[in-house]
């Protein structure tokens, strides 16, 4: 049966901004639609309207010519609209199965059968009886998708689904989505990633600043034309200049092992690598292969053998993060909101999290607020954080601005080595470019970077040397020129190359 979803003259006004300005769109099943736009373009607002989370000020939505009254997410579900949000809505401590059946009236046996057949059909491999917190991001997303599929949806809306996925997981997702589309599910794919739109979608609607800019067939578009529509100007491409790499070794990891007491963490097995001054070492891998553990060991959140980490001719394996900072190391963790910064605290207070002795934030145990504020102002101006109020709680910064603040906080002490983990996760193009430029600049100043990332493009763009982590083991280290994304893909999947 054909599904037709029509958005008619939808307007949503928030105090101080028009999030959707008279948007009209029509979708038909059998095709995959992209809704493209930068962060803040109004995509998410539109999606929230379609899923009943918010109500538009004006305009209507029709499903198969019938007007839809969406007062709550439940109404969307009842009308066979399924949603997979960018941030997962799962109960971490419940098992996969419990998460899947939580809002269903059918018996467990019927549901288990149903779920099993869905998993078989789409080749999903997930253990239903483990708690969700043990799953990788890609698996969690599959759980969300299954939860939608149980209800036989007519429409499936995916909100930035690949921001947490690896290349492989992404291509798996695309295969599934294509299959769903063939089976008659109308798919709306929200993203700001141009490449994905070209790969996956049949039609693309571009939004900018709350307005619908264009609707067109993919065939008549290319990446440049879409980028221009999305950003409203031509994007500059960033290229790293090949630098003379020095032979001056900065950090050396020797026979690093980590055996976790937590059965759901990944053990690390005999990790060895070194990074020279001015070099960027990229570590690729599918999420959940030990990156988080490796980051924590490098940052000192997990203490290891003293001699396993040699930094600038000192053994520092047994030092905590604060002590390592004194040796001129800096860290930018993956989780901006729960680890790298505290959203409920003010911007300048977040700056004080990187407490470097010579920055004198705390004298004799007392807070030196004026010093911290002065420092915060410098970071904001030096790193283009878009605000002038350091008293603002950092939850009001956009993801990109928060990341600039974090990177700025870590870099303003001019460390010799920056270790960052998925630094551009979930950011818009402008912010990604800025972060990439900043990272390249660090290398040009003869400082080093260890970049742990699940974004292969990013790694190929920024790294001088690349290695792949798989099941807690590091592949051999390759120079960036000899590596292609295909080769990385093979290694990330646990394969071998010669």
């Amino acid at each position, binding site marked *: 049966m054909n599904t037709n979803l029509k958005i008619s003259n939808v307007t949503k006004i928030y*105090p101080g901004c028009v999030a959707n300005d008279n948007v009209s769109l029509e979708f038909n099943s059998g095709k995959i639609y992209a809704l493209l736009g930068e962060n803040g373009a109004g995509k998410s607002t539109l999606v929230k309207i379609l899923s009943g989370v918010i109500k538009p000020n004006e305009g209507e939505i029709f499903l198969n010519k019938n007007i839809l009254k969406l007062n709550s997410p439940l109404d969307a579900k009842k009308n066979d609209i399924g949603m997979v949000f960018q941030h997962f809505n799962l109960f971490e401590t419940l098992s996969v199965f419990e998460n899947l059946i939580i809002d269903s009236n059918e018996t467990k046996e019927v549901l288990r059968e149903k779920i099993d057949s869905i998993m078989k059909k789409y080749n999903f491999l997930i253990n239903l009886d483990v708690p969700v917190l043990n799953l990788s991001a890609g698996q969690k997303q599959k759980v969300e998708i299954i939860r939608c599929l149980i209800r036989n949806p007519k429409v499936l809306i995916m909100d930035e689904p690949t921001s947490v996925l690896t290349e492989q997981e992404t291509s798996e997702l695309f295969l599934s989505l294509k299959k769903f589309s063939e089976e008659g599910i109308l798919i709306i794919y929200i993203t700001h990633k141009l490449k994905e739109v070209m790969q996956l979608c049949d039609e693309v609607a571009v939004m900018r600043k709350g307005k619908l800019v264009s609707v067109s067939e993919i065939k008549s578009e290319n990446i440049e034309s879409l980028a221009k529509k999305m950003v409203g100007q031509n994007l500059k491409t960033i290229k790293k200049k090949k630098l003379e790499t020095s032979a001056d070794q900065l950090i050396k990891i020797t026979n690093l092992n980590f055996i976790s007491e937590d059965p759901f963490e990944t053990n690390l097995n005999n990790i060895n690598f070194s990074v020279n001054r001015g070099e960027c070492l990229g570590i690729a891998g599918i999420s959940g292969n030990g990156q988080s553990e490796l980051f924590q060991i490098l*940052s*000192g*959140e997990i203490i290891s053998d003293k001699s396993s980490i040699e930094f600038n001719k000192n053994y520092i394996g047994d030092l*905590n*993060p*604060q*002590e*390592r*900072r004194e040796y001129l190391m800096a*860290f930018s*963790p993956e*989780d901006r909101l*729960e*680890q*790298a*910064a*505290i959203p*409920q*605290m003010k911007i300048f*207070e977040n700056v*004080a*999290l*990187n*407490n470097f002795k010579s920055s004198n934030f*705390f004298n004799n*145990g*007392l*807070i030196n607020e004026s010093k911290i504020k002065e420092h915060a102002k410098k970071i904001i101006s030096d790193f283009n954080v878009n605000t002038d109020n350091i008293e603002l*709680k950092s*939850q009001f910064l956009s993801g990109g601005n928060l990341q600039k603040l974090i990177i700025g906080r870590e870099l303003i002490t001019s460390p010799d080595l920056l270790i960052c983990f998925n630094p551009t996760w979930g950011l818009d193009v402008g912010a990604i470019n800025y972060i990439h430029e900043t990272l390249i600049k660090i290398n040009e100043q003869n400082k080093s970077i260890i970049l742990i990332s699940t974004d292969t493009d990013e790694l190929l763009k920024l790294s001088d040397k690349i290695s792949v982590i798989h099941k807690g083991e590091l592949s051999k280290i390759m120079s960036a020129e000899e590596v292609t994304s295909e080769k990385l893909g093979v290694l990330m999947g646990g394969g071998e190359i010669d």
Partner: protein
Amino acid sequence: MIKIVKRDQPSRTIFFLTPVLAIILTLFAGGLIFYILGFKPFEALKFFFIVPIADMYGFSELLLKATPLCLIAIGLSFCFKSNNWNIGAEGQLTFGAIVSGGVALLFYNQEGFYILPIVILAGAIGGMLYASIPAILKTYFNTNEILVSLMLVYVSKLILDYLVVGPWSNPEGFNFPETRQFSESARLPILFEGLRIHAGIFLALAAVVVSWFIFYKTYLGFQMKVSGFSLKTAKYAGYKGKKMIILVFLISGACAGLAGVGEITGPIGQLHREVSPDYGFTAIIVAFLGRLHPVGIIFASLIVAITYLGAETAQIFMQIPKYTGQVFQGMILFFLLASDYLLFFKIKFKGSKK
């Protein structure tokens, strides 16, 4: 039509208004309960909240009850602010009383200026020792501090029971479950002739000032704040998490221990079975009613202290069981938690435009 809308961010005004709202609701519900029991609500509330503090003696009693509540709640706010759930202050108070009482008994027939400081110090150390048990178990064995600290309350009460009935009982006391009277030198000085308010109130006030300074002006306070929001961030920043857990428990235990000293060397003057009418538990309510802010805690301790006094007056004049006081304490906490809903949601009346 009434509609409930989620706030974009918790309201700061509401944050300080909800305690007031909770108290108003408690008064209202309390009046209703009195009415159902067959009393005139306003008269009953007057007996409960105004009569007890209408004269100097009553006011001194109010401060007397508020002192331990304030002191313990200040200590607890160190724990609560940094994500450590110490609910065993009653046990720390009792153990502090035991240790300081034991020391005071050593000097029962001596006088000297040096005795009181030693007794006070012993109480603080006793409280710290007792608080260190859940702290150490938490840091090194991953136990749950809520359970451990709570269960230790009953252990301490049984130890006290054993001591006052057995080895420490007054040899001339006709087998009453109590110890000898402490010597005058082991007693906190009374501030005004004829009233019971004693010098312990200065300990509480000092704790207020010192804690305010630590919370808002020191690196330790900053670390506590960070740990309270996110332990992951605290770890990433490189704060010594275990050390801090132990430190806040020790501070909290010291405050509770001092409250215990204040009771036995103040109004009581000896050890017996009931050194505290559950001050350690009530102080949890005080800490949250005061929003974990030192100044807020002063007000909260005064308000909650009234419920102790009011319960006694009500028992005498209206023949209502004094446990009504606990009903009021419970209602305050209940309404406080309920009105916290307004922090995150606002009520909108349909028809009003924003």
